[in-house]
C-alpha cells in the first residue's frame, strides 16, 4: 500500500520529466525521419533514412570533413583543457595569500557566454587589427599580419585555442575540489615510504581522484562536441568548411536553411556517436579500475 502511495505521489515528477525531457527528445528523433522543412509544412511525411543519406552525400557540405573537424576540435580541446586544468588545480591546492581572489579571477572565464567569448577572441585574432598580430609584428616575428581566422589551418587552431582558454577553469574547479578531499595521511604515509613528489602524483593523487577525472572527462567530451558557440561567432564554420563541426552544421540546417529534418539528423548522429563513446569509455575506465 505504502509503495503504491509513493508511486502516486511521484506522478507529477514523472510527468514533468517525460513532458519536458523525453518528449522533446523523441520528437527530435522522429523529425530526423521526416521531410520536416519550414518552407512546406503542408506535406509532412516519413521519408525513412533520406535525411541521413542527404547529409552524408551532400556535395556542398562535406560530411566526412565535418566529422574529421569535430574529432580534431574535440581531441585538442579536451587534452589541453585537461592538462592545463589539472596543473591549475595542483597549483591552487596549497594555500597562499590571496588564493580566494586569485582562483575567483582564474575561474571567471567559465561564467562567460560562449558567444561573447567568440566575439572577443575574434577581435584578438583579427587578421587586420588584432592584438595577436600587433604583438607578433612588434616582436618582429612576422612582417605582414597573419590571417588567423581566414586561413583554414590557422582558423582551426585559433578556435581550439579559444575553446581551451574557456574550458580550463572547469577542470580546474572540479579537480581542485577533488584534490582537497585527498586525506593528508596518505601523503604522510607515502612520504615515509620514500615517495617523491612525482610518484605521489601518480600513485596517490591520481588514483584517489580518478572517479572525478573519469566523470569530468566524459562530461566535457559531450559538451565540447555539442558546443557550437565559439566557432559560430568566430568563423561561422569557415573558411571553406575548415572549422565546421557537427554542432555548427546542425545550427546551419535549422536556423539558416529551415530544414528541421536534416538538422535533427545531425542531432541524431551526434547523439549516437556520444552514446557509443560513453559506453566504450565507461567500460574501459571501469575495467581498469577493477584491475587496480
Amino acid at each position, binding site marked *: 500500500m505504502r509503495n503504491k502511495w509513493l508511486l502516486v505521489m511521484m506522478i507529477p515528477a514523472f510527468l*514533468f520529466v517525460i513532458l519536458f525531457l523525453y518528449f522533446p527528445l523523441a520528437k527530435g528523433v522522429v523529425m530526423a525521419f521526416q521531410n520536416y522543412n519550414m518552407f512546406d509544412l503542408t506535406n509532412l511525411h516519413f521519408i525513412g533514412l533520406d535525411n541521413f543519406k542527404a547529409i552524408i552525400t551532400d556535395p556542398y557540405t562535406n560530411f566526412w570533413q565535418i566529422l574529421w573537424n569535430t574529432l580534431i576540435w574535440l581531441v585538442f580541446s579536451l587534452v589541453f583543457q585537461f592538462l592545463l586544468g589539472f596543473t591549475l588545480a595542483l597549483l591552487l591546492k596549497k594555500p597562499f595569500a590571496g588564493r580566494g581572489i586569485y582562483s575567483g579571477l582564474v575561474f571567471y572565464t567559465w561564467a562567460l557566454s560562449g558567444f561573447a567569448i567568440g566575439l572577443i577572441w575574434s577581435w584578438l585574432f583579427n587578421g587586420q587589427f588584432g592584438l595577436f598580430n600587433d604583438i607578433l609584428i612588434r616582436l618582429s616575428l612576422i612582417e605582414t599580419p597573419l590571417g588567423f581566422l581566414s586561413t583554414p589551418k590557422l582558423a582551426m587552431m585559433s578556435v581550439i585555442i579559444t575553446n581551451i582558454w574557456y574550458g580550463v577553469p572547469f577542470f580546474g574547479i572540479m579537480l581542485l575540489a577533488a584534490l582537497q578531499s585527498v586525506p593528508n595521511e596518505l601523503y604522510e604515509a607515502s612520504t615515509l615510504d620514500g615517495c617523491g613528489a612525482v610518484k605521489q602524483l601518480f600513485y596517490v593523487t591520481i588514483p584517489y581522484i580518478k572517479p572525478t577525472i573519469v566523470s569530468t572527462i566524459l562530461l566535457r567530451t559531450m559538451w565540447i562536441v555539442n558546443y557550437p558557440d565559439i566557432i559560430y561567432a568566430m568563423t561561422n564554420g*569557415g573558411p571553406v568548411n575548415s572549422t565546421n563541426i557537427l554542432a555548427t552544421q546542425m545550427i546551419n540546417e535549422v536556423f539558416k*536553411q529551415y530544414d528541421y529534418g536534416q538538422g535533427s539528423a545531425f542531432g541524431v548522429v551526434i547523439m549516437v556517436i556520444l552514446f557509443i563513446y560513453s559506453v566504450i569509455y565507461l567500460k574501459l575506465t571501469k575495467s581498469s579500475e577493477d584491475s587496480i
Partner: protein
Amino acid sequence: MKRVLVALLVFMLSISLFAGGSSESSSSDSSGKIKLTFFETMTSPGRTQVLQNLIAEYESLNPNIEIELISPPYEQADNRLSMMLNSNQELDVIEVRDYTQKQFVNNGKLLDLTPYIENWAEKDDFMPVAHEISRNVDDTPYILTSCLYVKALLVRTDILEKYGIPIPTTMDEMYEASKQLAAANPNQFGYALRGKSNTFKISDVLMFGNVGDINTEMCYETNDGKYWLDNENGKKAMEQYLDLYKNGCPADSINWGFNEQINGFISGTTPFLVQDPDVIGSLEGQLDPSLYTVVPLPVGTSGYRYLDYGYNGFAISTTSKHPDEAWAFISWLNGSEKNGEFCKAYGPLPVFQSVYENDDYFSSDKYQAWADELVAEDTIFVKFPIDSEKYPAWAQVQEQGMQAMLMGTVSVDDTIKTFKEYWGY
C-alpha cells in the same frame, strides 16, 4: 477519504501545471478590453523599446485595446513564430520578412489584406515599391510593407581626398580606386569585402551591373532565361571580383562579417563599404559624420545598378479573432507618421513618399543617396530566388565556394561550374 482527497489534489495540480496558461489565452478580458497579441521578429533591445513606446501611445488613444508584445531574441524569433503559427496558436499581428513571407503564405498562415488596403486612406502615399513587395507572393497583399533595406556605397571622403581619388560612379572606377589605394600604402586597402554570413547579398550585387540584362524576377538569369555566370560578362565579373580581393582588399576580409566590415570602414583601412541604411546608426558616435558620405551604388558597364531589396512588414494571422482591430493597429503603426518615426529610431528606409519629402532626417544628405537610388532611372530592382527550395542552403554553398575561389584553392571556372550545377542549369 483523506488520502483520496490528497490524491485528487495531486492529480489536479499536475494537470493544471501542464495545462497552465491555456485558460488565459482568451482574447478579451472581463473589463471588455480587446487584447491583441503582436509578435516581433527582428528584435533588438532598442527596437523593442521603440515598439513598446508606440504601443503605449496607441493604447492611450484606444482605451478598449490592449496589446501584448512578444519579442523573442532575434536568432530564434523566426523559428519560434513558425512553430506558434504551425500549432495554430492565436496571434493577431505578426512581423513577416523577406525570408518568411513565402513560407507563411504557403502554409496558409496569413490573412489576405486586399479589402483593407483598398479602403486605406494612405494607399496612394505608400510607395509603389512597397505595394509591390506587399504582393510579392501569389500577387496578393498578405503583408503591409514597413521597412526597406537597400544597398548603397558609403565612402570615407577624408581618405579619398588624402590620396587624390575621386568618388567612384561606376563599378570599374570603384575597383580601380580600391587597387590604387592598396598599392599606395601597405596598411591601406580599398573595399570592405564581406567574406562570410550572406556574402552573396553583396558580392552578387556588385556583379549584376557589369553583367547587365538581368531577369528582375530571378537575378541569376538573364532575360533570355539563361544562367549568366558562365557567359562572357559573368565570367569577367567573377574574375574582376577575385582581382578586387587580391589587389584591393585585406586578405583577412575572407572572414569578415558585418562587424569587421564596419570596423574596417571606421578605421579607414577600407574606405569603400556597400551596406544597408541601418549602418548609419551603427556608425553614429564612432565616426565623425563629416568624414564620410553615402552615394548611390555605382552603375556597372551595362549602365545600370541592379539592387535587391530586403524588407519586413506586418501581417495578420489567420488565427486572429480580431482582424479588424488588428488592421486598425497596423495601419496606424505603419501609417506615414509612425513609419517615419519608427525608421528614424531604428535605421531602415521608410515606405512613404511623404516621409522623404517632409522629414528633415530622411531628406538629409546621408539618406539622400537612398532616396535618389530608389527612384533613379538607372536603378533596376531584382529579386533573389527566395521562392526556390534551393535558396535556403545557397548562402552556405556560395560562401564556401567564394572563399575557396578567393583563397585560390579552386579556379574561377570550377567555382562557376559548381554554382551553375547548384541552380540546376
